[in-house]
């Protein structure tokens, strides 16, 4: 076997060193495209999913969200919960919110919305709401008769044409809000927020105290407590610690939330992803098979000669294994260069959906390693098979076609 390997290596080495460089370049080019095909779409899909989950973290749920136990409308001792949460190691910031239903009215136009009552100064550390005000300003601690309106309901955001909107609401406009308990308030629009995410742009924000006032709460209730962790990836651990710290409400990580929220989306994406992978693999393996097959057929006589002079069929198969490994390694290398070039390009120039949603691909190292390994294995098998079948043919047939 050692001899087979040495001889196989020599044959492969000579055929690479003195073989046709154009053919080699072409084969490597095709292989690099196969590799790219294998990793590119999943990277885009990864980018899409990453963007969704990013939104979920940045707006409604943070890294960890605490919600009332089943059957309760509120977390009853929100400040107590906050105190416990803030004491947990690994928690960077936390705040409480009150989400309520309401309708907004402006010059005969009425739109149903969800209004979130929040503590403006605390939001700077917890969410991106303060940073996405495209016109006007974010709420301040003194904002008691002011409101922030999402761009879609304001009628200025992308996508507002497909939703009910208030027409021409600008900072400084006045709107009437009717809360779900019938209480009416008049607010001045302080700012328009645009997060290019429907859940955000269909929402409105007021001061926490406003909601307390309207609903007659006593300064302790909240519909959610939103938590951010110091290090991404520690959510699950921190969630368990919060539970250990004596918080008895429901605690979810963003992943728990996004799973139920976009499970549907994830599943169909995942299916596309897997299908595209399988198809690329089959196409890739077939191409490698064809390439080696043609290569082997062209060198059928040579294989016969090698056998006739006493080279074992096994060394011949080994030499093709070396050859395809070499081709595939070069192909993967070229593919990686292409891939990273494309990644750089698309990260600098994201693909734009619905005019505002920008998707940049995400480089997934596990995926890369997986693809490299799969490609190597498949290609080596696809490369060996034709060599194996020819090397078993009779010498007379291989050399003289008889």
């Amino acid at each position: 076997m050692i001899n087979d390997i040495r001889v196989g290596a020599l044959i492969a080495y000579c055929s690479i060193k003195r073989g046709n460089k154009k053919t080699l370049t072409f084969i490597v080019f095709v292989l690099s495209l196969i590799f790219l095909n294998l990793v590119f779409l999943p990277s885009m899909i990864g980018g899409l999913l990453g963007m969704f989950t990013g939104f979920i973290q940045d707006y409604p749920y943070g890294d960890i969200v605490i919600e009332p136990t089943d059957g309760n409308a509120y977390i009853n001792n929100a400040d107590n919960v906050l105190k416990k949460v803030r004491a947990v190691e690994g928690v960077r910031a936390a705040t409480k919110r009150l989400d309520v239903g309401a309708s907004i009215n402006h010059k005969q136009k009425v739109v149903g919305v969800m209004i979130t009552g929040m503590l403006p100064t605390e939001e700077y550390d917890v969410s991106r709401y303060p940073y996405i005000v495209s016109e006007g300003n974010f709420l301040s601690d003194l904002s008691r008769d002011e409101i922030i309106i999402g761009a879609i309901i304001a009628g200025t955001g992308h996508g507002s044409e497909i939703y009910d909107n208030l027409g021409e609401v600008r900072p400084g406009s006045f709107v009437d809000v009717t809360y779900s308990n019938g209480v009416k308030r008049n607010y001045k629009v302080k700012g328009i927020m645009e997060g290019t995410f429907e859940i955000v742009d269909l929402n409105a924000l007021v001061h926490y105290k406003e909601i307390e006032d309207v609903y007659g709460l006593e300064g302790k209730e909240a519909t959610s407590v939103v938590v951010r962790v110091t290090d991404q990836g520690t959510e699950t651990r921190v969630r368990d610690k919060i539970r250990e710290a004596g918080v008895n409400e429901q605690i979810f990580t963003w992943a728990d939330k996004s799973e139920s929220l976009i499970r549907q989306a994830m599943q169909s994406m995942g299916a596309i992803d897997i299908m595209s992978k399988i198809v690329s693999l089959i196409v890739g393996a077939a191409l490698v098979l064809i390439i080696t097959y043609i290569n082997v057929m062209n060198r059928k006589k040579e294989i016969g000669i090698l056998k006739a002079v006493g080279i074992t069929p096994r060394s011949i198969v080994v030499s093709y294994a070396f050859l395809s490994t070499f081709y595939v390694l070069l192909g993967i290398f070229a593919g990686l260069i292409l891939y990273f070039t494309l990644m750089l390009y698309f990260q600098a120039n994201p693909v734009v959906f619905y005019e505002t949603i920008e998707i940049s691909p995400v480089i997934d190292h596990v995926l890369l390693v997986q693809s490299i390994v799969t490609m190597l294995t498949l290609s080596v098998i696809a490369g060996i098979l034709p060599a194996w079948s020819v090397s078993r043919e009779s010498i007379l047939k291989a050399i003289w076609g008889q």
Partner: protein
Amino acid sequence: MIVVKDLKRYYGIGETAVRALNGVSFEITKSEFVAIMGASGSGKTTLLRILALLDDATDGIYTIRGLEVSSLPEAERSFYRLTQVGYVFQDYALINEMSAAENVYVLSMMEGKSKKESYITALEALDKVGLKEKHDRVPGELSGGEKQRVAIARAIAKKPDIMFADEPCANLDTNNSKQVLDVFKELNEKYGQTIIMVTHEPWHVEYVSRVITLEDGIVISDENRQNNKISPK
């Protein structure tokens, strides 16, 4: 050394079968240089391929040094081809991507010799055919006669019991043919190499010690030549 008894090789079966060899018998002793001659289609190539273990006889007995080789399993025949049998093809059959030395050396490596040893063996063999200087040229950079001499070097590097050659000069002009035949002759006389060569050029018999003539698959004459004086055509 070689004993062939009633060797038969039919192509196809039944009434329409071509009887390429129809009962061939002879013995060849060590250090003979034998020419197999005969008209086209008389069965020379068929015989040689069987002797070189590239093909199987339909019937008959073939032994090398008393070992019945015709019935060996393929793996052992492969080993025999590698270690005991040298074969020179009409069209050289060199590997185009390998240099002269590599074409020879790959066989020594197959036998398990070290890289260095293999290289030395290859150079020795190339030296015997007068091509030591051109050891790093690829076949594309060699003349027909030179290519055939590399093929001979490949066949003799392993110091085979017998060397076979099927019309080794068919693609060569007279000059190159002479070079090749001189190499054969020298190998035969100097090193006692047993050679069995198929040819149909009458002037080639000047080089050999024995001529076996085939016709329609049987031996019609088998004569020793006493003094092989080389006379140009």
